[in-house]
């Protein structure tokens, strides 16, 4: 049985297939409401992430299945020092599939090496979060009709933003993608993303510090949070923070069919007034996240 640890575990063909199933679920949810009758999802959240956990749980309930699990390490045996391997071997006796979030990088891989049931990585530290990337890909597909031929801007904290790195990794396998990287100098994209993903796959990319200079070129704008604690000085933060806040004024020069995305939660990097703009897609992204998790669980559980 297969697991999903890294977005690149899935071929582009398999991603396409998941997107098609998700689209079909959106069109015809009733046809899927009984597909996982009698199946159990265990959500093992060794660190809390309410929105990701709820998305997995809602996905399983909408497939007619059941959910068990824990939502923080304190309430689990990990607090008593149990190894990931032992926890997983135990839970595998009760569940058919596991969604796991863990503060340590690589923990879901360790889990998958110790069980026969599928493991879904629901975030391992700052490392991978493949179902977020799947939600992003479904959103791009639904907004743009394809995963090829568009210009996507990533704006904000590109250094620590794992959602950005994973999405770039996923997109680097498609045709005609142009990437525009907008960030303060201190939060520029790590070098390995440029060399091992963008350059290696011959993806055209540019780097800038000014969102306003490039916004008119974009088909998709992927915003991320710029956290205060990432800055070297308070002065620097105050100087830069506004340039990475998206508001209606900055959108004036943007394309009419721009899709504004954000992995959420947001703090203030997208002004609330943008929510009513047709170009805002971040709440659709949340909903898409649930549908793609439904499609993923159907696939991993090999439910027809």
């Amino acid at each position, binding site marked *: 049985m297969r697991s999903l640890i890294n977005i690149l575990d899935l071929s582009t063909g398999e991603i396409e297939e998941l997107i098609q199933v998700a689209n079909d679920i959106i069109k015809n949810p009733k046809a899927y409401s009984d597909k996982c009758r009698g199946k159990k999802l265990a959500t093992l959240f060794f660190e809390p992430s309410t929105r990701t956990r709820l998305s997995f749980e809602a996905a399983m309930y909408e497939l007619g299945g059941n959910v068990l699990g824990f939502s923080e390490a304190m309430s689990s045996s990990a607090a008593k020092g149990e*190894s*990931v*391997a032992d926890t997983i071997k135990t839970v595998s006796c009760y569940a058919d599939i596991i969604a796991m979030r*863990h*503060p*340590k*990088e*690589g*923990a879901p*891989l*360790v889990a998958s090496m110790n069980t026969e049931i599928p493991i879904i990585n629901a975030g*391992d*530290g*700052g*490392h991978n979060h493949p179902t977020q990337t799947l939600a992003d890909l479904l959103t791009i597909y639904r907004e743009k009709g394809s995963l090829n031929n568009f210009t996507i801007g990533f704006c904000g904290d590109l250094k620590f933003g794992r959602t950005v790195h994973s999405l770039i990794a996923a997109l680097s396998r498609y045709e005609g993608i142009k990437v525009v990287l907008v960030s303060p100098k201190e939060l520029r994209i790590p070098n*390995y993303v440029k060399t*091992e993903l963008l350059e290696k796959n011959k993806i055209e990319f540019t780097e800038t510090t000014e969102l306003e200079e490039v916004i008119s070129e974009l088909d998709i704008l992927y915003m991320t949070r710029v956290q205060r604690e990432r800055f070297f000085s308070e002065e620097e933060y105050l100087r830069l923070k506004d340039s990475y806040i998206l508001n209606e004024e900055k959108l004036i020069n943007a394309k009419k069919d721009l899709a504004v995305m954000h992995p959420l939660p947001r703090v203030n990097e997208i002004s609330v007034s943008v929510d009513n703009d047709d170009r805002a897609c971040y709440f659709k992204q949340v909903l898409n996240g649930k549908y793609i998790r439904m499609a993923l669980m159907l696939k991993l559980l090999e439910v027809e």
Partner: protein
Amino acid sequence: MMNIDPIKNGIVIDHIKAGKSMELYHYLNLENLDCSIAIIKNAPSKKLGKKDIIKIDAAINIDLDVLGYIDPDITIDTIKDGVLVDKRHLELPEILTGVIKCKNPRCITSTEQELAHTFKLTDRENRVYRCIYCEAESNE
């Protein structure tokens, strides 16, 4: 070249970068063997100019992955009844387990002591190994 008795049954670790033989000797725990071992330093070499050679007069098993990781240019000759029966060119191993350690403090190997530290060769040209768990690059 210096005269050293040819070995009957054993292995010759050849084309070691000059000066590296003692490091290998310790890495392979050769000090624990009681057979005769010859270490030849700075032997002339067409390919390397100078090289080191280790001759071990016993048919022992050697961890080729470790050797390949330390120096992929090394060759291993196996001698049986005085005859060269196998000449092996090493290469960087695809998977390396228990040789180098992941130093990323956010990696699961930092808290789970039982886990084997395993690395995967992700870029042969630039000799890049990454931890299979956290994908951090090895810096050894």
